């Protein structure tokens, strides 16, 4: 297993994919938090709104970590390197486990950076407008370290999605669509899932970073639920990769 892990670590370090995703993520966190910083002062003064604005870091960290995880498999299929990967590592489930482990590790870094940037830029934007930040140390810790946990687990979900979908463009679009629209539509009044919506994986990720405590699960509950999603997706992905022919 150590050989598969070391190989996967080098695989992900030896292209610019992770770095490119990381840069795009930081840019979007900056943009999203700054734009939210233009909200009316009376709204931005509320703790609830501040958590949501600062929590843009968690959301984008989870999104980009999921894309990274998915690409760890779909890029190999797209470029054909999956063939030589499976020739040297014929125990394919170990390859998938190594991809989950490395993606979770890098994903945690994504979440940590995105969470910290979201908090930093948010606090600076509010400070510049003279609005008091009403968050305490516990809120900050959850926003930053919760973002790391949420992104790490979403990276695991991403690997599973990549292994099951295999085709890169649909896999990435699927992840974006789910986090940006589909889950919101399902959870919203439109479909009427109502409070069931908090058990969806994007909502669980928001819960991990301490957002919307009235509506969402508690952070620890969210973490356990999201970890279950990640384990289920990764397991399904490993089984699918082991059984299906490689084209």
């Amino acid at each position, binding site marked *: 297993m150590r*050989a*598969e892990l*070391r*190989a996967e670590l*080098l*695989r992900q370090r*030896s*292209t*610019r*994919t992770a770095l490119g995703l990381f840069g795009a993520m930081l840019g979007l966190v900056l943009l999203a938090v700054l734009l939210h910083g233009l909200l009316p002062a009376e709204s931005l003064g509320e703790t609830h709104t501040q958590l949501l604005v600062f929590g843009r870091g968690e959301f984008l960290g989870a999104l980009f970590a999921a894309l990274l995880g998915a690409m760890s498999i779909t*890029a*190999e299929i797209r*470029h*054909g*390197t999956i*063939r*030589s*990967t*499976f*020739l*040297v*590592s*014929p*125990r394919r489930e170990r390859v998938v486990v190594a991809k989950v482990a490395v993606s979770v590790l890098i994903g945690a870094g994504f979440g940590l950076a995105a969470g910290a940037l979201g908090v930093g830029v948010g606090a600076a934007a509010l400070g510049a407008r003279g609005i008091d930040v009403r968050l305490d140390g516990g809120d900050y810790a959850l926003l930053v370290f919760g973002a790391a946990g949420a992104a790490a687990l979403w990276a695991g979900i991403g690997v599973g999605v990549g292994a099951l979908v295999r085709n890169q463009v649909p896999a990435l679009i699927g992840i974006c669509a789910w986090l940006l629209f589909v889950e919101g539509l399902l959870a919203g009044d439109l479909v009427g899932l109502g409070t069931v919506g908090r058990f969806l994986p994007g909502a669980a990720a928001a819960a991990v970073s301490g957002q919307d405590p009235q509506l969402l699960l508690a952070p620890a509950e969210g973490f356990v639920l999201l970890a279950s999603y990640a384990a289920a997706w990764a397991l399904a992905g490993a089984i699918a990769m082991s059984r299906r*022919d*490689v084209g």
Partner: protein
Amino acid sequence: MSERVDERDLLPPPPDGARDPVVTVASLTKRYGDLVAVDDLTFSLRSGTVTGFLGPNGAGKTTTLRVLLGLAEPSGGEALAFGHRYRELEQPARRIGAVLESSDFHPGRSGRDHLRTLALAARLPSSRVDDVLALVELEPAADRRVRTYSLGMRQRLGLAGALLGDPELLVLDEPANGLDPAGVHWLRRFLRRFAERGRTVLVSSHMLAEAAQTVDHVVIIDRGHRVASGRLEELTEHGRTLEDVFLGLTGTTP
């Protein structure tokens, strides 16, 4: 036409004792839905030979190689290397090296890093990366991204990956595709030298003139069936060329 050469000709020589053939393909069948890509195919290879695996496009050559290499599961029968299914081999890279496609690289990764990932996964010393880069004469370009490589350089990088584990069997799918004359000449010499050291090569091709200069045994398949196999010199006796034999057997005579 019945050009079948005796099966015994392809089995290992008896004096060596009960040595397993390097490759044993037995009643191999592979179906994709209604399409039968490989149909009850049987052949074996003995060590020290360069065997041309010949057939028209779509005959089932690549499918057979994929099953042999554990990338696809057979629908029936089996394809064994050294008596085992590929996925059951311990450290397969030390026994079998393979190149299936000439473009199986991430364009943004350097040739050296590509080989290093394979060496790590195969638990091979990193010195092997330098060895094979020297062997395929790719050292000057090793730290460049593969996107800057010519087709010939990519072919050689693929070959370097296959040779990392110093394997006993080399499996190549259409390795001469897109190579310039110097590249073809280099590959031919390389494969002959490889086999002279008692190792085995299975090389698929539909370029018959080239194959005739490189291989000493052939297995010809058509529409998933074996239509001939044996020593090249026996198949081409009476002054016939490999092309004559091939076209006659695969029913593509003009």
